């Protein structure tokens, strides 16, 4: 016996370098137990190439800033373990789809959040001065449960990157913004239901959705924006037939 340690297992990571045009560059990173994809990217940036650009903050699946395309699928990288995605010892990491690439793995999320504004994805209190009444919202009510179903969105952009309709029609509001509008439409404290439905029904709104359900398949929080959009389709039609749209 030579007594020599077996070679440390390695991972070949191909990372996108460049902007809209660029190339995947391979790096060799030691495999560790419970290693996440974000750990791998951080290792490359800290130990191999400090010019690598990427974005993260909380590292625990709360802030929604570290989403990237991993082996062709949009994922939150801080909660994606390498073991799950690197069956053959290789991982290919790129920026999210459907957003302009700033550099390497960092995308410009401004168009994504601008659409939340265009979709009127902000709470408008029905009691504007917030003094006269104290809202009583039964947690078990149908509206509150419909709102709660989509409320845990962390704005990571995974659904937006997964959506083919966004890829085809860059004006389309996208799953996250429409999911947000659906929570507001169901929020009994919100006073702008008509405005929300009108924004959702616009020519880049809910009726453009093809129900491919990629948003639902890849949402790291397990939300179902497709169901939210289907709800908006129903409510906009009801509103139309009542002459309120």
């Amino acid at each position, binding site marked *: 016996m030579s007594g020599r340690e077996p070679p440390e297992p390695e991972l070949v990571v191909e990372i996108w370098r460049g902007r809209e045009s660029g190339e995947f560059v391979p790096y060799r990173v030691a495999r560790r137990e419970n290693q996440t994809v974000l750990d791998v990217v951080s290792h490359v940036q800290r130990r191999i190439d400090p010019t690598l650009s990427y974005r993260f903050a909380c590292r625990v699946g709360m802030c929604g800033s570290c989403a990237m395309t991993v082996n062709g699928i949009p994922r939150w990288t801080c909660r994606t373990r390498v073991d799950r995605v690197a069956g053959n010892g290789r991982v290919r990491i790129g920026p999210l789809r459907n957003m302009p690439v700033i550099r390497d793995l960092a995308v410009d999320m401004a168009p994504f959040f601008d659409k939340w504004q265009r979709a009127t994805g902000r709470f408008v209190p029905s009691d504007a001065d917030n003094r006269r009444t104290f809202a009583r919202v039964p947690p078990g009510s149908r509206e509150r449960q419909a709102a709660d179903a989509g409320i845990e969105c962390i704005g990571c952009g995974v659904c937006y990157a997964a959506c083919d309709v966004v890829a085809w029609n860059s004006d389309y509001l996208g799953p996250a913004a429409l999911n947000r509008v659906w929570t507001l439409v169901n929020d009994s404290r919100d006073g702008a239901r008509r405005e929300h439905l009108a924004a959702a*029904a616009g*020519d880049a709104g809910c009726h453009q959705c093809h129900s491919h359900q990629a948003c639902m398949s890849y949402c790291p929080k397990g939300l179902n924006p497709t169901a939210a959009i289907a709800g908006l389709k129903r409510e906009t039609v009801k509103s139309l037939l009542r002459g309120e749209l």
Partner: protein
Amino acid sequence: MTGRLEAWLYVAQRGSAFVLAPLVVVHLATMIYAIRGGLSAEEILSRTEDSAVWGSVYGLFVAAVAVHAPIGVRSIVREMTPWKGRSLDVAALLFCALIVVLGVRAVGALL
């Protein structure tokens, strides 16, 4: 306004699909049944002439297609090409008119 238009188009396309689904089945089943053993145009016309049932079925078919197809083609064009806006809406209406004209002529020839 665009919200109302899109919502109406959504209703019209789903509604026409609801009408088309059984009619397509009737159309395919009739075709498969009717041509078994060979069938001439003369024989087909002898059965359909003066038939209110066939006239109604295919009249409704044409109306539903004239609503359904232009809305779908408009959506595909908007997604797959840079063409959007009023000119595309007008083109979709013209496509609708074309289907109505050709369809009514075809149904008229059966009766």
